[in-house]
């Protein structure tokens, strides 16, 4: 049977494709490569921290390692991972469309991403960069003698791929819905991507102009941020975090969308409080733009601004908590099964809750001053970005893998590796909360001997986590050739994407579907739903 993978062959048919499903796979390959590069840097960082002295590398090299880890992971993996891979594949399918509104723009966004990534990789190979992924001025413009300019250009370019993806999603969700697919019948995955797209189109241009001004200052001595040239470095921090805090929601919102789908499917129940989850996504997108100042409690920001940002940072936790409560309520009296994607979903809910609650510690000004720039921060945002985003990404990848490839993976290895990742993650990052609370600062290659035990635990955890990530890489590849062929709907899930063959035909649906029921109508058609 003809489907999107076999209707055309050859490298040309992939590199010039306008099919959103193939572009999703292109993104999957590039994002995986960037994830592995970022992972290697993380491994080197953890190896150096195995002992208190700087014996694997000295401070200059170490600075480059954590910087390049952050840049590769944040800009080239976490931000595009869920939207550009899973979102690209699923947004048109879930709303019953043949493609995104602008397929050529979609392909262009992948090329822009790749060119930006190549610039950044070139900067990494030809000497690296040591400013931290935050590029604080004036160090980045006046003092660092590493490849700041080329890295900045790479990130600037990649930003446009994010803008174009967000633009494409917004127009597609507004204009391309199938007959009967009203706003409140949309899967929550779509609401989450809609909210994330709003942040992509409103936030990304701001970081683009910020990095451009930084490049002009560094390259052409156009003073904007450097005090020596009359500028103000704190302005850079404001502009940077105006994007980079909401960027966390670009990462986490699509992952939350995945979790809503998984929890409903594997507890065979309608999502509890559908509209609350939908609107909480929009609320996070909106309020998320008003909390950036909590990164600057110790950067000469006024006390009154600090108080306002503190309160708003507490406020943004409310819609996140609404989601967690609603997922939990969905599980209540559900018929829960523990397939691989559901194990990731449980991992997400637990780890995201810890990451979110420790975020409240950091929103409190007094406590934040104590733990600012310590490992407490590092642990907190890894619980959100790794424990949250990557758990959601892997859960979604496993859930839709049969749809994407038409093959089943090994459920045994799936569950094993999900468990290994959960254990490895906690062993890596929980000790860092304690290290930070005890006062170990981030971004140093050496530390006092009293911190060694916890650091050894963390490094041991990181190696377990690394193994956990490698196993899916192996069995997912394996399944593409040797996996059991997947049926159209192997999980008995609801949603338009499961009504079409696996893998889907080129234009997704043989005939345009007509939607007559709300999302998550589990329990209304008898067979898949022992409990109503």
């Amino acid at each position, binding site marked *: 049977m003809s489907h999107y993978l076999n209707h055309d062959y050859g490298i040309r048919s992939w590199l010039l494709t306008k099919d959103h499903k193939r572009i999703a796979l292109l993104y999957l390959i590039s994002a995986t490569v960037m994830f592995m590069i970022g992972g290697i840097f993380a491994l080197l960082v953890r190896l150096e921290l195995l002992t208190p002295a700087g014996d694997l590398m000295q401070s200059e090299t170490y600075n480059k390692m954590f910087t390049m880890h952050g840049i590769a992971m944040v800009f080239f993996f976490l931000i595009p991972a869920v939207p550009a891979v899973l979102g690209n594949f699923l947004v048109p399918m879930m709303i019953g469309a043949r493609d995104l509104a602008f397929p050529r723009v979609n392909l262009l966004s992948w090329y822009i991403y790749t060119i930006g990534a190549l610039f950044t990789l070139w900067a990494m190979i030809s000497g690296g960069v040591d400013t931290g992924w935050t590029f604080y001025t004036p160090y980045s413009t006046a003092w660092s003698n590493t490849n700041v300019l080329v890295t900045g250009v790479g990130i600037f370019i990649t930003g446009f791929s994010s803008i174009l993806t967000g633009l494409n999603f917004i127009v597609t969700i507004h*204009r391309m819905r199938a007959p009967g697919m009203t706003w409140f019948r949309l899967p929550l995955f779509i609401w989450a991507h809609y909210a994330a797209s709003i942040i992509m189109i*409103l936030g990304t241009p701001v970081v683009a102009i910020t990095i451009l001004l930084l490049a002009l200052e560094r390259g052409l*001595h156009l003073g904007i941020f450097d005090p020596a040239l009359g500028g103000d470095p704190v302005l850079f921090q404001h502009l940077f975090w105006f994007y980079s805090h909401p960027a966390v929601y670009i990462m986490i919102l699509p992952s939350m969308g995945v979790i809503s789908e998984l929890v409903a499917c594997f507890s065979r129940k309608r999502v509890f409080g559908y509209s609350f989850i939908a609107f909480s996504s929009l609320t996070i997108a909106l309020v998320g733009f008003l909390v950036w100042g909590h990164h600057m409690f110790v950067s000469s920001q006024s006390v009154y601004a600090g108080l306002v940002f503190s309160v708003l940072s507490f406020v943004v936790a409310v819609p996140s908590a609404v989601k967690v409560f609603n997922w939990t309520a969905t599980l209540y009296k559900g018929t829960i099964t523990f397939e691989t994607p559901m194990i990731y979903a449980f991992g997400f809910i637990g780890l995201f809750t810890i990451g979110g609650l420790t975020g409240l510690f950091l929103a409190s000004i007094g406590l934040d001053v104590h733990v600012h720039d310590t490992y407490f921060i590092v642990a907190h945002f890894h619980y959100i970005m790794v424990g949250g985003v990557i758990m959601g990404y892997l859960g979604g990848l496993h859930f839709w893998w049969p749809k994407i490839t038409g093959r089943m993976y090994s459920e045994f290895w799936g569950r094993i590796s999900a468990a290994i990742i959960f254990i490895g993650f906690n062993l890596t990052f929980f000790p860092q909360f304690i290290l930070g609370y005890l006062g170990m600062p981030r971004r140093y290659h050496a530390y006092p001997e009293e911190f060694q035990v916890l650091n050894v635990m963390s490094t041991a955890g990181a190696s377990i986590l690394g193994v956990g990530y490698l196993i899916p890489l192996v069995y997912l590849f394996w399944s593409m050739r040797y996996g059991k062929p997947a049926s159209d709907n192997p999980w008995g899930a609801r949603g338009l994407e499961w009504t079409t063959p696996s893998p889907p035909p080129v234009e997704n649906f043989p005939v*345009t579907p007509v939607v007559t029921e709300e999302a998550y109508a589990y329990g209304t058609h008898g067979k898949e739903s022992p409990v109503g």
Partner: protein
Amino acid sequence: MADAHAGALHAHQFEDADQQKDASTLGMWVFLLTEILFFGGMFLAYAVYRIAYPAAWAAASHHLDVRLGGINTVVLIVSSLTMAMAVHAAQLGRRQQLVVFLILTMLLGGVFVGIKAVEYQHKFAEGHVPGPGFHFEGADGRHAQLFFSLYFAMTGMHALHMIIGFGLLAWLLAGSLKGRFTPSYYTPVEMIGLYWHFVDIVWIFLFPLLYLLGRH
């Protein structure tokens, strides 16, 4: 923006030509929204520093050529008029008028960028370009340099948008000479028209903010 073929045909992902036009229009407005935020970062920097150093900024602003800036403002507003006329001609299917108005818009755009280049050249001659060679006769040279940094960043980014717009107009011109646009399909003319007006509006803000400081 749209994957469109000539005439009233529509791209495969759409149900009909109306849906395609709706999508393109929404896409263009969303894109212009991102452009507002892109320039917004520079307007924020402008606001912060102008409030912090009003005297140095007024002194620096007096070194800009109001006459050339004013002429350019008129040139750009007239080019927006000719662009609007071009869209109108495309709507009515008047091919010759469309070609003439596109050429006029390109000419006016060219004049704007030309005058801007002359102004830049004056700044180089006067030593008002930020960098090691910068010198300023007034009291607070450091913050005057900040003004010129933002002047070059903002007008430079605006000029870059003009040059991109010029290229888009050239593409439209080629298309209209081939008769690609009809009353039932002229979306690209309308979309690039929106872009051109946006770039015009940015200048309408830049001119008073940069050239008219302390002149009231």
